[in-house]
């Protein structure tokens, strides 16, 4: 069973943030009903399955397709690295962190910080220089994950400390060029920009620095002043420690393991409350016949 380009694009939308938001809020999603009823492959093969199983089926088609979308890569990183090599108690995932004028697709914090730029089979490499330059100011390790056919171009376009990974046809991640972990080349001010004020203050305290008591409109400029005098590697390492706690997803561990593999990356980044978790599970367990009437 091969997907054509149009159906692949349509099925990939099952894993969109808007769908997970609808699930979390209403335990249903009209968008899903629309996508599945338009997909002959899904609605005709197995009308009696659940929404969750339809997601699994869609995902297995997407990952075998010649048009592997962003979510296939994203899901590979989450399934293989975050939930495979690490666990949610030891590692924390940051989704789409804005660094300067670029957005790092996924970042994993464990002993260090590792940013991943995903170049799916349809993405252009045009902005790669710019993106990598921004990520290197904040994260000690930067990786780019691409299709095998674009490995050499990616290697040529990026500095030697940037790792290059590929996603094989068998859905395994292979390291082509090993990244070099370099916390000393980060920039404390760029790091400050991804932090909330209370996170930045905690980092300062851990480095035995303090800012004067000022009104909240002046906190950022005080933090800016303080961060500009600090050692990059020290700030980076405290950033990892502090964000691993403040943005921890350990509380989502049981929930994530209770839903189908294919939905995990999408569900995890939606950071659902306990009530929302139940609604997401309810939506995924809905029989397809019933889900097709969602509106």
């Amino acid at each position, binding site marked *: 069973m091969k997907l054509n380009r149009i159906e692949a694009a349509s099925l990939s939308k099952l894993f969109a943030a808007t769908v997970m938001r609808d699930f979390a809020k209403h335990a249903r999603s009209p968008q899903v009903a629309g996508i599945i009823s338009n997909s002959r492959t899904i609605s005709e093969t197995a009308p009696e399955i659940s929404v969750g199983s339809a997601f699994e089926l869609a995902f297995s088609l997407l990952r075998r397709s010649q048009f592997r979308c962003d979510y296939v890569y994203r899901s590979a990183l989450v399934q293989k690295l975050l939930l495979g090599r690490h666990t949610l108690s030891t590692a924390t995932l940051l989704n789409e962190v*804005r660094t300067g004028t670029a957005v790092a697709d996924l970042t994993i914090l464990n002993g260090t910080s590792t940013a991943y730029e995903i170049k799916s089979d349809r993405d252009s490499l045009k902005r790669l220089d710019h993106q990598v330059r921004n990520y290197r100011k904040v994260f000690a390790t930067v990786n780019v994950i691409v299709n095998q056919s674009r490995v050499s171009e990616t290697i040529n376009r990026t500095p030697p400390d940037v790792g290059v990974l590929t996603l094989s046809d068998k859905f395994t991640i292979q390291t082509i060029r090993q990244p070099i972990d370099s916390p000393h080349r980060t920039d404390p001010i760029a790091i400050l920009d991804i932090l909330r004020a209370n996170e930045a203050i905690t980092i300062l305290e851990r480095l035995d620095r303090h800012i004067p008591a000022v*009104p909240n409109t*002046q906190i950022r400029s005080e933090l800016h002043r303080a961060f500009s005098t600090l050692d990059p590697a020290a700030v980076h390492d405290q950033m990892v420690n502090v964000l691993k706690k403040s943005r921890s997803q350990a509380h989502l561990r049981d929930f994530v393991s209770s839903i189908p593999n294919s939905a995990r990356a999408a569900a995890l980044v939606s950071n659902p409350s306990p009530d929302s978790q139940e609604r997401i599970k309810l939506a995924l367990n809905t029989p397809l016949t019933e889900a097709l009437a969602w509106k």
Partner: protein
Amino acid sequence: MYYPYFRGKQFELIAIRESAEVLASSGFVPIVEPVRESLSSLERTLSALGEQKTEVVVIVNPLHGDHKASSESIVSFLADRSTDSGTVSPGVLLTSDVAAPEAAALLNRLESDGFTAATVVHAGFTDARGFLAEIKFTQLSIRNAFFDKHTNLLYRRHFPDGQRVLIADGFTQMKNADYPPLEAFSDLHATFTERGMQGYGDFLTVGDNYSEGGGPAYAVAIHLTFIDPDQDNAMFVYHFKSDTNDTPTDPAGKFSQALNKLIAKLDSGNSGLVDTSAIGEFRTLHERGHFPGLGYVKKLSIKHHIETLAHYHRSQIHAG
């Protein structure tokens, strides 16, 4: 007279609640389109308005937000309140998606639930004849409110009776960074009677376009309206904006940049801004160097707008 149209987001509902007294003493009637699934915040707002005996219209079939799929929960919410409070009345939104029989059925339902009056908001619906035929026998006293953008004179001519209200959006929405320092807002408050209306409305300093949340703010803007007696009492809006707008960081610092411009304007003595409760709060925030959050700033902007129009109508009565 004035019918401010609110999408019932959290900070808008709080603005209404805190303006209950001003709304009551001015005879203003807020129209609220509930967009949030939970009705508890709306409930608190309606109680605050009820205590002041302020009339309020609640749209039972919202176009936007969590209730757009079904009007059931709002209708039953209002029906529960129809006996204990005469100040809340239902509104029916007639958009291009609504068919005449459907709209009539909703009005019938409201009538059988014990309501005696309803506001019909004409917002893109075109089958005026069909609708009038359907509601020929209704006992409800009907007020017609027209969205200026969606209705023309010919359409409005079908509804010559009862109270007629024209609602026009004076607020041009754009990226905060793109706002000019000063812009025309509306003249409807000064011209609605000439347009054959008993009332007028607007979307305050929020605007008609509905969006959920939105992305990070690169620029912070404080929107404040004023009426210029030297320009035939036309209303204008200041957009006080932050200066460093190239990254989405430090909204608090950006707010203080915008606030400094507002305070400088006020201190110039020729701002034209009425000294409302919101202006007082902005002065306090400036003295404390405090950023209360973007929703709060929006709330102050809304309250200022309502109080400015209250002040205008009061002064017209004294002048006239």
